[in-house]
């Protein structure tokens, strides 16, 4: 009987983790364009977006997962619907992922805690708004016009991001109980053979 081969990892991520990252990235882009709530309040897509991002990072449970999800979803968004922002739309997806990772590291991955998850969701959603603002400035839009309504937008982004984080934390807790979340330390990279 042949011994089972050790699972291959890329950047410490198992195949399962990579599949989760790809799926979540696709779901974020799909949710952004198809799950529209007629709320007409800026940042409301954060409910789905931040919930999915948080769930993805929660399941993979490795630093860098959020950045990878953000990067992949950004690439998908550029390919599917670049809109007026062109390739810069990718940054809007990348930034929340990066911030989600920072929050994951800061709070030692405790996305099962509602308070931490809500903060992470709010921070990631406000990162999206900040990126939109910077993209607008880069596109040469006058600061005065971009800043109009920014206060309301920032507040609603925080609220919807926090709601998304809260929803995500509920799912992460349930998944944790069922053992879906792998809390083992990342597998060591195979050492390079020396001559």
């Amino acid at each position: 009987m042949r011994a089972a081969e050790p699972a291959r990892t890329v950047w410490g991520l198992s195949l399962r983790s990579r599949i989760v990252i790809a799926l979540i990235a696709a779901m974020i882009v799909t949710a952004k364009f198809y799950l529209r709530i007629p709320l007409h309040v800026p940042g409301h897509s954060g409910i789905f977006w931040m919930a999915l991002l948080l769930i993805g990072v929660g399941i993979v449970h490795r630093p860098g997962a959020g950045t990878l999800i953000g990067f992949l979803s950004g690439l998908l968004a550029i390919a599917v619907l670049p809109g007026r922002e062109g390739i810069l739309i990718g940054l809007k997806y990348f930034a929340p992922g990066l911030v989600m990772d920072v929050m994951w590291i800061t709070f030692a991955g405790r996305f099962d805690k509602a308070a931490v998850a809500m903060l992470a969701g709010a921070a990631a959603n406000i990162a999206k708004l900040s990126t939109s603002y910077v993209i607008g400035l880069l596109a040469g839009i006058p600061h005065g016009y971009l800043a109009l309504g920014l206060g309301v937008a920032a507040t609603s982004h925080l609220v919807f991001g926090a709601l998304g984080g809260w929803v995500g934390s509920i799912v992460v807790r349930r998944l944790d109980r069922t053992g879906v979340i792998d809390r083992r330390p990342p597998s060591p990279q195979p050492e390079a053979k020396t001559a």
Partner: protein
Amino acid sequence: MLDRLDQQTKRILLAVLALVLIAGSAWALDLTARKKSERYEVSVTSGDDVLATFSLEDLKAMEARRVLMQGQLQEGPALLDVLAAAGVEDFNSVMIYGMGLRDEGQITLSRAEISEEVLLDFAARGTVKLCGPDIAWADRVRDVERLDVR
């Protein structure tokens, strides 16, 4: 254990503080921009000729109408009233130009498409947006700057 809890609480408080600061900065930028953008105007043109220019206050002084779009009440002067105030009675079409920050920034409506329910709705941003029951949500023109009659 207690130290660890305290550290976690400290981090949470710091994160909350950072988010409040960001939101506060956004409000400060917004309020500063509002003061500077008091000159927001909507002009009515016919080619190169400027027929009239309306400030936000001028538009607010006109009779406000209301329409319901996707469950939201839109309120502002009718496009026809604004054009009439600029002395425009007969026209074939109007090109509505916006700032193009969050939408395509323009739409052309023929005279037949403009009913009394096509409005310049007052937006929370301190600008007006073109809307109407027969105008798709995605086709609205926000932050309207110019109405060019033809």
